[in-house]
């Protein structure tokens, strides 16, 4: 599991996750996700390269998102694959953290 960040125009922090968000993957990214969530106001979580998402992986997304929300920030989820998206939807998380498949729409949602 790998995690990388870059700053986009408009004060958006893009976090790209790459790999399996299973229990081991969640353990790898948790610390960095929490650090990012401690300062980001507009967080775009890029899920394009996530090929598995389990309940512990969901937790690694929800807790940082909650931290950003609690400071008045915004979070969007970007481009999950079909199965990862079905996990997000089954959990009801898509109603709380919008999912976008086009970068323009994801960026607009954070404006």
């Amino acid at each position, binding site marked *: 599991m790998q995690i990388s960040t870059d700053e986009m125009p408009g004060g958006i922090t893009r976090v790209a996750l790459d790999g*399996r968000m*299973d*229990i*081991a993957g969640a*353990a790898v990214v948790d610390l960095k996700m929490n650090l990012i969530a401690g300062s980001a106001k507009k967080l775009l979580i890029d899920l394009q390269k996530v090929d*598995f*998402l*389990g*309940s*512990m992986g*969901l*937790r690694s997304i*929800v*807790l940082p*998102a*909650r931290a950003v*929300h*609690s400071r008045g920030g915004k979070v969007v989820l970007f481009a999950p694959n*079909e*199965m990862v998206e079905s*996990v997000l939807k*089954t*959990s*009801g*998380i898509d*109603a*709380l*953290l919008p999912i976008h498949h086009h970068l323009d729409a994801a960026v607009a949602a954070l404006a």
Partner: protein
Amino acid sequence: MLALPTAVMHASNQSTDASSPEPRLTLKSQLADLTLVWSWVEALAAQHSISAETQFAIQLCLEEALSNVIRHGYSGQANQSVTVACTVECASTGRRELVFVVEDHGPPFDPLAHPHAGQAPAPASIAELEPGGQGIRLMRSFAHRVAYQRLPNGNRLTLAFVIKQ
């Protein structure tokens, strides 16, 4: 950091085909051992020509079922064991199912009776979302069939997945 896995494959049902996965996996009750489930399910998926979607669902459900046993059933005691057995069952309709049976010898723990067992409405805000409470909802949704049985000295959770032709 997770510790190295220590699980062993049971050799009680050895196959004549050396490439076939064992039908039963025994894990120590530590989260690090869950890494062994991934390759085991991959091998089973190859053996039974399981679709990528069904393989995803199996991984999702087994990760949840096993982590529940380790974290809740055994309360984090790392020296216990949990087994997963896999069989193929044929229904009268001709439909085939890949059936996983997870057994432990912990105190009674019925995950399907958990308050977050998938019956509650989805949370209304991110602040209300229970971070670890989605697993049972996912298992109910992604497995074709989920059943719990209390054993005299443990628990049995059965998860079945339809093998699409």
